[in-house]
Every structure is written in C-alpha cells, then in structure tokens.
C-alpha cells in the first residue's frame, strides 16, 4: 500500500526508531506473557501466603506492610498471593476454552470447506448467527440456561467464539482444495481426513495462532467480566474479576483493592494483544497495517 503524501515525499526510510520501538514492545509483551505462564504453572509454589487464608487480625493492610507486598483484603488474605493464584484460574480457563474452540472451529470449518453444498451452507449459516450476535449477551443467555460456574462460562465463551475459527479454516480449505499437491496426495490414495490433517491443517497454523493470541485477551476480559457479575468463578476462589467484585464496597476506603487485580488483568490483556499484533505482522503479512 503506497500513499502519496502531498508535497514532501521522504523516500524509503531506513530501519527507524519506530521499528525498534515495536521490537521493544514485543519483548516486553513476551516477558509479561512468560511471567504469566510461570505464575500460572508454578503458582502454588510461588505464593508467599495461602491465597485463601483468612486472617482477620491483619485485614486491610496497606501495600508494603510487613509480609504483605501488596497488602491484604477485607478478610486479611494476601493480595499478591491471590493475584498469582488468579493467574492460574484465568489462563487455565482461557486455554481450555481455546482448545475447545480450535477443536470445533477446525473440524466444522474443515467439513464445511470439504463437503461444500448444503452441509457448507448450513454450517456457515449457523456460524453467521453466532458471529453477528453480541458475545456478552450470548454468554449471559448460555449461563442462564446452563447455570453459573467456571465450566459453564467456558462453554458459553467457546460457543460465542468458535465461528471465526471455522470461517477461516473453511476459507483456507476452499482456497487450497484444487492445488496440485493435494490432487497428488489424493491420487496416491490418501483419504480426506489424512489430507486434511497432513496437508491442510499446517496451512491454517499461522492464521490460527494469530487469531488465538489476539482472542486470549478478549476471552480473559469475558471470564473476569462474568465472574465480576457473579456469574462465573464463584466467590472464595481467587480470580481477578471476583477480587474486584469483593473489593467494590471498599472503593472509598481501600481503592487499591480494586486497583491491583484490574491492573493485572489490564496488563495481561495488553501483553497478549501486543504479542498477537506482532505475530500477525510476522506470520500474516497481507494483514499488515490493516489494524495496526
């Protein structure tokens, strides 16, 4: 895409500060994601205190007080420990959701692209409905039907996100169906399933990774938002949205109780978005600049 800037055309720019800035952002995002992964995997061994240990004697301690780096909440529970424990809930939940979505999206998209005709039409029409409908309202309805709780939140979010993955997979299958190397595989006796797994699936990887990374942040926001409303993860569990909901009555007296979990959520979402943007520029060049 070339733009004609009126008057002063600056010509080809050398590797500029903007590029270096982006690279720096990428490393920061990568580090945050790595940190989150460590916190999620090794959380129980990293926490300075038991995240659910109630200690009414030292309740509502400010940040930096003895033994509590970020202070304690209204039940005397250590906030840093709860933040670390929350990482596992958030990320774990998102990863499971993502696995379900990839499973549904890849298989339905693959079937639609391969089968064509009526099957394709039905699948894509259903996908259209799921894509146009606002995610939060769909999730609310699903939870109304299934009941509250983490598992149902996962199902609700999976159902409101799979359609994009199916559509992209279908597009890739359609665009590659008539390539020569696929014909060759067919002639050499490979079945449709094998062709899909061995030849088409790898072709979807780069787009799936980009889409998934960009979606992780979105899903984290949904999990926490629903938990904040009391519809997702339930109260004693340390989850960022639950922590904010717990702390809301202290907005006048101890606002930091709301600040920390929100900051953790914000930084995590931002890191995954940055990473997704960077991966998109890398892996999916024709999308470059479309959203940046």
């Amino acid at each position, binding site marked *: 895409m070339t*733009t*004609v800037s009126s008057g002063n055309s600056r010509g080809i720019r050398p590797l500029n500060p903007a590029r270096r800035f982006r690279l720096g952002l990428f490393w920061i995002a990568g580090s945050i994601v790595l940190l989150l992964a460590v916190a999620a995997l090794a959380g129980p061994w990293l926490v300075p205190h038991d995240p659910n240990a109630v200690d009414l004697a030292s309740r509502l301690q400010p940040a930096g007080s003895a033994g509590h780096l970020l202070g304690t909440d209204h039940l005397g529970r250590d906030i840093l420990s709860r933040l670390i424990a929350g990482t596992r809930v958030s990320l774990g939940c998102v990863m499971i959701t993502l696995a379900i979505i990839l499973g549904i999206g890849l298989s339905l998209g693959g079937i639609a692209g391969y089968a064509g005709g009526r099957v394709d039409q039905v699948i894509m029409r259903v996908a259209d409905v799921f894509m*146009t409908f606002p995610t939060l309202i769909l999730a*609310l309805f699903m939870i*109304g039907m*299934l009941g509250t709780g983490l598992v149902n939140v996962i199902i609700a979010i999976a159902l409101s996100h799979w359609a994009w993955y199916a559509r992209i997979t279908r597009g890739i299958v359609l665009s590659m169906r008539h390539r020569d190397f696929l014909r060759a595989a067919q002639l050499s006796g490979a079945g449709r399933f094998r062709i899909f797994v061995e030849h088409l699936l790898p072709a979807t990887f780069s787009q799936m990774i980009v889409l998934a990374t960009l979606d992780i942040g979105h899903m984290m926001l949904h999990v926490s938002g629903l938990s904040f409303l009391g519809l997702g993860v339930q109260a004693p569990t340390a989850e960022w949205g639950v922590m*904010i909901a717990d702390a809301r009555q202290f907005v006048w007296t101890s606002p930091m109780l709301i600040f920390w979990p929100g900051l953790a959520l914000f930084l995590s979402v*931002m890191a995954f978005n940055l990473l997704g943007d960077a991966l998109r520029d890398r892996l999916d060049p024709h999308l470059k600049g479309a959203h940046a």
Partner: protein
Amino acid sequence: MTAYILRRLLLIVPMLFGASLVIFLMLRLGPSDPALDYLRLSKVPPTPQALEEARRFLGLDLPLSTQYLNWIGRALAGDFGTSYALQRPVLPDILHFLPATLALAGTALAFTMIISVPLGIWAARYRDRWPDHAVRLIAFLGVSMPNFWLGFLLVMVFSVHLGWLPPMGRDGPPSLVMPVIAVAFMSLAINARLLRASMLEVAGQRHVRYARLRGLSDRVVERRHILRNAWLPIITAMGMHVGELLGGTLVIETIFGWPGVGRYAVSAILNRDYPVIQCFTLLMVVIFVLCNLLVDIVYALADPRIRRSTGDTA
C-alpha cells in the same frame, strides 16, 4: 431502494421467529428442570407431588410444540409470563428498567461516534507523526482495558479524589459522564483504529491520486474522495458496536447503580428464572436486530451502488 428496505423489513420476521424458537428450545432442553427451579424460587420443598403439580401448572407436561406456540402466542400479545422469583409479570418490569439501559447505551454510541471519528481522521491525516501515535496508543489501551475496571478507576479519580461527579445513580447529565466513558471506551478505540485504517487504504487508491493530480487541496481530497468511501466500513461496524455497547452497559450498570435492566437480568440469570431469561434475551435480540436493520438502511443510503440498484443485487 424502497424495495430493498421492504425486503430487509420482511426478512426480520422469520429471523425473530427463528431466534425465539432457538431461545425457547435451548432453555427447555437445557440441563435443569424449570419445575424444580420454580419450586426452589417459590420456596416449596420439591416433593414428587409438588413437582407434578408445578409441571401441570406451568404447562410443562404439554408437548414441546404446544408449549412453544402457547408461549409465543402470549408473547405476541405482550404477555411474557410471570417471574418465578418475584411472582410479578415479566414484561412490565423489564420495560420499567429498559429505558435507562437504552439511554446509557444510546449515549455511549453517540459518544463513540463523536470522539472516534475525529480521532480516526486526525490519525490518518498525520500518519506516522505524533497525532497518529497518540491515537494508536489510545486505541491500544482501549482494546485492552477491562470496562468494569475503567469504571472503578473513574470513580476513584472523579468521585473519591476530586469529588466532581456522582459515583452512583441516575440524576441528570453529570451522572452519565463516567458510565458513558466506561461503556464506550473500547468501541471508541476500535472505531478510531478502523477509520484510520480505512482512510489510509482509500488514500492509496487511484481515484484519490488522480484527485491530487488534478490539484485539489488536501482538505477537499480528504472530504470528497477519501472520507466518502472510508466511511462505509464505519457504518457496518456500528451494528457490531451496538451489541458490544449493550453488553457493556449491562456490566457497567452494576457499578454505577444505574437503574437499568442489567441487575434485574443478572439476578434472574443467577436464579435461573426462566420467564425472565426468555423475555430478556428475546428483547435484546429484537433491539439488536432492529439496530442492525437501521444500520443496513443507513449503509444503503450512503452507498450509491446499493442506493441506485433496484434491490436485486443487495
């Protein structure tokens, strides 16, 4: 053009019927038993006999098709049944709370447009200079910011610290400021980014280069040749924003004690109060579908390719 609008209007009828059928079936075929929930919410111990009676009373013993026809028939007459938890008719209650929600979501939509359009134009005009970087930073923060956290941050700064704005309730324009910002921030960010990208894409097209070659000024080119085309994706995106803003409003309402339908719906969902969930979801679908119809009509009016067609190609 008229034919196009008429056809879009007619298309709504089967769409809404389909939606109502899906909502009804999913709730009925879901894992829990409405009769059990009814007894729980009426605080009656669920003996087999009581369950039997509740089934008959709620019409759950009839075939599904009859149940659906009964429900949709009454719904068309404005009767969405009685809430299990509150023992009050559902529709009047929802209609009582709905205006506040629509006022907040509508203001947020207007705010989104008023702020994001100039931001997008500004960023595209000064591409790769500081206004562009600033707008991209805002856009980036916007897509990562949890809206409920933003709501609390605003309360901390503007109510707790500065004391400028009321933290709760619905009392005139000042009480709208923080909820609207919290609801609209993400859509605003997405929209500004979209308009910027769309303008830059159009700016690279041949007719724009030709316009510049003809010696038209930057402003004229921007207004007549870039914006008119770049505007179209924004109209389409508005349909999406309506849904996100409505969803965001339901969350933000609970923070600011906004007397909308959000808290009513959330407590119904927590209780599995079926008549309320059915009515609420269907109303949200209706609002969403109508808004998207409006968006499609605006799009058709804005896009001469559709405006001048007889309706066959659209």
